[in-house]
C-alpha cells in the first residue's frame, strides 16, 4: 500500500492546525483572554498528534527512521517543540508560553513544507541509528534551551510589569514568576544532558560510520559553543544559585547571541550539516 498520500494529508492537516493554534495564541495575547489560549493549547495538541502520525507515515514510506528526508527532520523540530510544551502544560499552568511556542512550531512546519518530501538526508551506507539518535537528541535538547529562553523572556516581561507597582491585565495573563523560573530550571536541567548525549552520538557516528574529519566543521564548533554556554548557565543555576531575574536575563542574552552566531555561520561558511 502506498502511504505517500496519507503522509501528505497528515502533514497538510498538521500545518493547518499549527497555523490555527499560533494565530489563536497571538490573538489571546492581543485580547487578553486566557480562554483563547486554552483552546489554542488543544488545537496545538491536535497538530502534535497529526505530526506524530505524519512522522510514522513518513517512516513507513522511507522504510525506517534512519533514512528520513529533510521535511521529516524539520517536522521533528516542530514535533519536539510541541511535545516539550505539552508536557510542561501538565506541570504548570502556563498556557501563555504557547504564544512563543505556537509560532515556533508553525515556523518549523513552514520550513518543513519548503523541503522536498522524499529525498533522504544521508546517502545510502551512511544511514545509521547513530545519526538518527544524534539528530533526535540534539534537536530535543536545543528545543528545551529555546523554551528555557522563552520562559526567561516572559519572566523579564512579568518582572517589569510587577516592579512598576501596578497590576495590569497583561500581568494577569502572563504566568507567575515562580512558574517561569521553574520552567527555566527544568528546561536547562533536561536539555543539557540530552544535548550532551546528542553531541557524543554525533561524534561516535563521525568517527566510526562516516570515518570523516568533523572537528573543523563550523556547525560542529557552533554546537560545541552552544553546549558550553548552556553548561555555564546550568552551573550558575545549580552551583551559584542564580535564580529569578538574573537567570532569565542571562538565558535571553545567550539565546540571542547563539541565534546571531548561527545565522553568521550559516551565511559565511559551508558546512557538512548544510541541511539544517
Amino acid at each position: 500500500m502506498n502511504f505517500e498520500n496519507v503522509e501528505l494529508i497528515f502533514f497538510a492537516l498538521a500545518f493547518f492546525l499549527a497555523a490555527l493554534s499560533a494565530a489563536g495564541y497571538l490573538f489571546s495575547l492581543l485580547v487578553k483572554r486566557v480562554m483563547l489560549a486554552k483552546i489554542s493549547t488543544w488545537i496545538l495538541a491536535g497538530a502534535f498528534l497529526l505530526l506524530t502520525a505524519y512522522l510514522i507515515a513518513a517512516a513507513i514510506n522511507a522504510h525506517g527512521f534512519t533514512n528520513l528526508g529533510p521535511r521529516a527532520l524539520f517536522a521533528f523540530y516542530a514535533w519536539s517543540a510541541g511535545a516539550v510544551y505539552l508536557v510542561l502544560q501538565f506541570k504548570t499552568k502556563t498556557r501563555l508560553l504557547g504564544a512563543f511556542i505556537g509560532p515556533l512550531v508553525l515556523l518549523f512546519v513552514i520550513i518543513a513544507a519548503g523541503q522536498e518530501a522524499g529525498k533522504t538526508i544521508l546517502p545510502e551506507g551512511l544511514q545509521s541509528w547513530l545519526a538518527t539518535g544524534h539528530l533526535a537528541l540534539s534537536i530535543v535538547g536545543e528545543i528545551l534551551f529555546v523554551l528555557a529562553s522563552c520562559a526567561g523572556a516572559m519572566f523579564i516581561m512579568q518582572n517589569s510589569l510587577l516592579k512598576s507597582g501596578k497590576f495590569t491585565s497583561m500581568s494577569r495573563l502572563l504566568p507567575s514568576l515562580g512558574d517561569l523560573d521553574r520552567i527555566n530550571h527544568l528546561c536547562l536541567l533536561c536539555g543539557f544532558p540530552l544535548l550532551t548525549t546528542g553531541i557524543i552520538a554525533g561524534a561516535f557516528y563521525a568517527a566510526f560510520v562516516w570515518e570523516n574529519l568533523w572537528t573543523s566543521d563550523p556547525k560542529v564548533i557552533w554546537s560545541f559553543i552552544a553546549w558550553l554556554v548552556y553548561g555555564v548557565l546550568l552551573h550558575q543555576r545549580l552551583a551559584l544559585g542564580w535564580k529569578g531575574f538574573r537567570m532569565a536575563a542571562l538565558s535571553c542574552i545567550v539565546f540571542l547571541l547563539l541565534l546571531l552566531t548561527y545565522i553568521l555561520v550559516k551565511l559565511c561558511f559551508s558546512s557538512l550539516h548544510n541541511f539544517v
Partner: protein
Amino acid sequence: MKMIILIGLNHKTAPLAVRERLFAGCEDAKTLLPEFLAIEGVAETLFLATCNRVEVIAVIEDNPETIDKLKTTLMKKGGLTDGEASCLYIYRDDKAIKHLFRVTSSLDSLVMGETQILGQAKDAYRQALAQNATGVALNRLMHRAFRAAKRVRTETGIAANPVSVSFAAVELAKKIFGTLTGKKILIVGAGEMAELTGTHLVGNGAEEITVANRSQAQAAALAEKFHGRAVGLEALDDALAHADIVISSTGAPSYIITEDMLRQALRKRKNPLLFLIDIAVPRDIDPAAGEIENVYLYNIDNLQDIVDENVKMRRREALKAEKIVDEEVAQYSNWLKELEAVPTIVSLRTKAEKIVRTELEKAQGWMTGMENGDREKIEALVQGIVNKILHAPVAVMKEESAEFSAQDIVAAARQLFRLDE
C-alpha cells in the same frame, strides 16, 4: 389573574437599625412561611433574609388587599412604624422578576460580584421547598434566578478581580510565586489589616507565620491566632532572611526595613523571590528596596489603585450582566405567559387538528374506492372523537383559569400533550 410580587428592603433603602430589626423578626422561617401562605390570595411564597436585605417573593391573586396584608405582616415582623414603611419597595411581575435576578447575580449587592448572596438565596429556596411553600411558578422562577446568576458569573468578569486590599495582595502573591503552598510570612507590627491579609494568605496555602512587633505581648497574641511564632523587632534581620512574604504595618515614624537590611537578608536566602507589602502610613519599608533584584514592593497606594481599577472593571462588566439579566427575565416571563390557559387551549386544538389532517391524508390510499358520502362520514367521525376527547381537558383548563390554580393544570397539560416541543 395571578401575579408575581416582591416586597422588601435592602441596604440602599433602609438604615441598618431597620434592617436589623426586620432581619431578627424574620429569622424563623418555620412560622413565617405558613403565616404568609395563610393570607388570602397568596398561592406560593418564599423569603430571603440576610444582613443586607429582607425580601418576600410571592405568587398572589392580583388584588390590592392581598398586597396590603403581605406588607403589613412583614412590617409587623420587624416592628416597622408607618414612617419606616417608606423603606419597603414593592415590585410587580417583570420588575419583581428582574429585581430577584439582579439580587442572585449580586448586581444589587453592596460589593458587586460577591458570591455569598447566591448561597443565601439557595438556602432560602430550600427552606421554602421544605415547607411546601412554592409551586410551579416560583420553582421555575428560582431555578431561572440561579441560572441567571451562574451565567453572569461565567460570562462576565464581574467576580474576576479582587476588590479588597487584602485579596489584591493575595492575587499579587500568586502572580509572583505561582503557588503559595509552603510560603513563609512575616508580619511586622500587629495591625488589623496585616492580620486580615495574613489570614487570606494562609487560606491560600501559606504556612509558617512569624509576627515581629515592638510589644512582644501583642506579637504573641497575634502569633497565637495563626499558630505562629512571635519575635521582637531586634530579631527582624533574621526573620527577614526566612520570609517569602513580608507584611508591614507598624506606627513607626521612619523606615524600619531598609534597603541594606534586605540586601543582607537576601544573601542568606535560597528562594530569591521576595514580596513586600507595606501598608503602613508613614511607610515602613524604604522605597529603594523595590529596586533590588527579585524584590517586589507594594505600598498601600499601589494596592488601593489596583482595587480601584478592579472596581471600575466590575462596573463595566455589570453592564454586560444587566443584559444577561434582561434576557433571562424575558425568557421567564414568556414561559409564565404561556402558563395561562387560553394560549394552551389554542395550541392543544391546533395540535389535534394537525394530527387529524395527517392521519386522514395517510388514509387517502384505501379511501379512494369509497363514495364521497362515506368519506365525509368517516372524516366527521374522526373529528367527533377528537373533539370529545379534548372536551374535558379544555373545559377543566377554562374552569381553573377562572379560579387561581390554572398554572399547575396548564403546565401539566403542556407536558402531557408535549405542547412545548
